[in-house]
């Protein structure tokens, strides 16, 4: 569930940064079209992968419900942090990008 949440948050942040107006305000400069496209791809891939850890750990029924819950919660947290603590919001996504796959690998091998 936690790994799913991390992947969801990172995915949403990538999608958010893929939008020019958010990219400009968060990074401080206009993003190149190629970079934005790459971010959009990364975002959708992360979101696409995010249900699997929860479903692998809890079975599809529980896993799917948990994934839906953390999907909404992570997007909510992101949108709430953006106007008040934008640097924290981006930093958290960085942590998620590293901790998410690491957690998935640990859960997979452990």
């Amino acid at each position, binding site marked *: 569930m936690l790994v799913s949440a991390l992947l969801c948050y990172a995915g949403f942040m990538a999608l958010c940064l893929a*939008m020019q107006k958010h990219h400009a305000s968060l990074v401080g400069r206009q993003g190149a079209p190629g970079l934005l496209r790459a971010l959009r791809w990364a975002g959708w891939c992360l979101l696409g992968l995010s249900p699997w850890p929860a479903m692998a750990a809890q079975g599809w029924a529980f896993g799917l419900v948990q994934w839906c*819950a*953390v*999907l*909404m919660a992570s*997007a909510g947290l992101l949108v709430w942090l953006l*106007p008040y603590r934008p640097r924290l919001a981006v930093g958290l996504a960085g942590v998620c990008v590293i901790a998410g796959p690491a957690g998935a690998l640990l859960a997979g091998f452990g």
Partner: protein
Amino acid sequence: MREGFRQAMAWLHTWAGLLFGWLLFAIFLTGSLTYFRQELNRWAHPEVLYQQAGTPESLASAQAFLEKHAPGAPNWLIIAADERLPVLTLYYRQTSESGRGSLVETVVDPRSGEAVQARDSRGGEFFYRFHYELEMGYPWGRWLASLAAFVMFVTLVSGIITHKKLFKDFFTFRPGKGQRSWLDGHNALGVLALPFHLMITYSSLVIFMTMTMPASILSRYDGNTRAFFNELFPATAGMGDTAQRQAPMLPLPALYARYLALVPGGQVGMVSVDKPGTASATATFTPKVGARVAYLPGGGVTLNAVDGSVVRGLAAEPVPQRVAGGFYGMHMGRFAGPVLRWLYFISGLAATAMIGTGLVMWLGKRLLKHAGATVQPFELRVVGALNLAGMVGLVCAVAAFLCANRLLPLALAGRASWEVRVFFLVWLASLLHALWRPNGAGWLQQLSAAAAMLLSVPVLSQFATSRGLAVTLPQGDWAVAGVDLACAGFGLVLAWLARRVWRRALQARAEQAPPRAVRIKREAH
């Protein structure tokens, strides 16, 4: 054409949302509280020393109690203890001399097997029943709640259509910009938790579908809905030997062992014993509701209670039943662990806040047109009062209900009804107050009152009961401590909101002061 359609949907969203907004706010707030129904029940009965017991031990306690107190009852119903509410709830029909039976409910300690002595309070059950029956009596409350759910669904769909930039503004929230921020907040709460909103609203329609939309049942079963339910939930009565010979019953733990042999690892939520003490006695073991996502009542394994043979095994679950049960189960979230339960609760509050922001926006938009006027139009005053009473007033009523649990004398006759009366009296008082002051001052006063009451809850628990935070925290009793802590937390949030309203009022007064002074001077001349 397209813009015309969108405008029509915006109109529908605005007016359907306004008409049902206050009712939906109440339904969603009490529904969110219901996710902690068991915890609220524990909190509401602080005298009870909750202790966990294994299933066999607790079933033995239940059987001993029922054999002693209800030996001749036609049936027993045992709601098993679980981790969240570790008490047995027993129901049996007591036949009086006139032949009319009355249903008796007893709460029993699963370890000692003794009836639990606790204060008369409905606790979380009140919010649960209010959530779908609105204290209106069967079937009116259920119909009104179903209608509200239908309107909620309509407002959700029309809201999605009205929202022009759903994806473009997905991450957008701009606080501190007046009406713009309210709309951003309303949209964010709506869009980000949209899967929850759609699920909870659609599933609420599924839960009452046999009541509100019986056409398919009526046509298939020639108008006999009873036949449909008999087929869906086959009765266990009269399945065994019809002779009423007395016969000793096997101990329930032994029958439970048989059940486990049939359903390995099966957790039991409910055991119903039919015709106990006779040769035709049966025991039906129903799986624990929280063991899976889908909620399918009526299933289970029926055993002959005298010789332990299987009378009816696990029934097949047709796909439509599983789908409906899936929606029912997802709505109630009985399967959720602590983290998921909190996410359910927060999503419920997000839906409540979405409705609240919608109501505030409806009024704010129209008040702008009358910004300079000293007297607002009557209808805006009414909506303003209903907004205040419907939102903050309800929170006041909930807080008062919780305080009443701690403050009402234990010996008061009909104590549980008095708690409910306190709830409605406070709500009524808040409505009268709101009609008198449907403005910033009213908001400030009611928010402060709600904050004060909620902040006092942990204090009252500490000094009026034996289970205050000083006891529950070291013991790690998070169910009871959690309610106290959550009350304090929400009290602080409301106090913060009150402070914001107060500061805004001060600001507005400072801005308005010069023109008013000029006007008074002019009047004087």
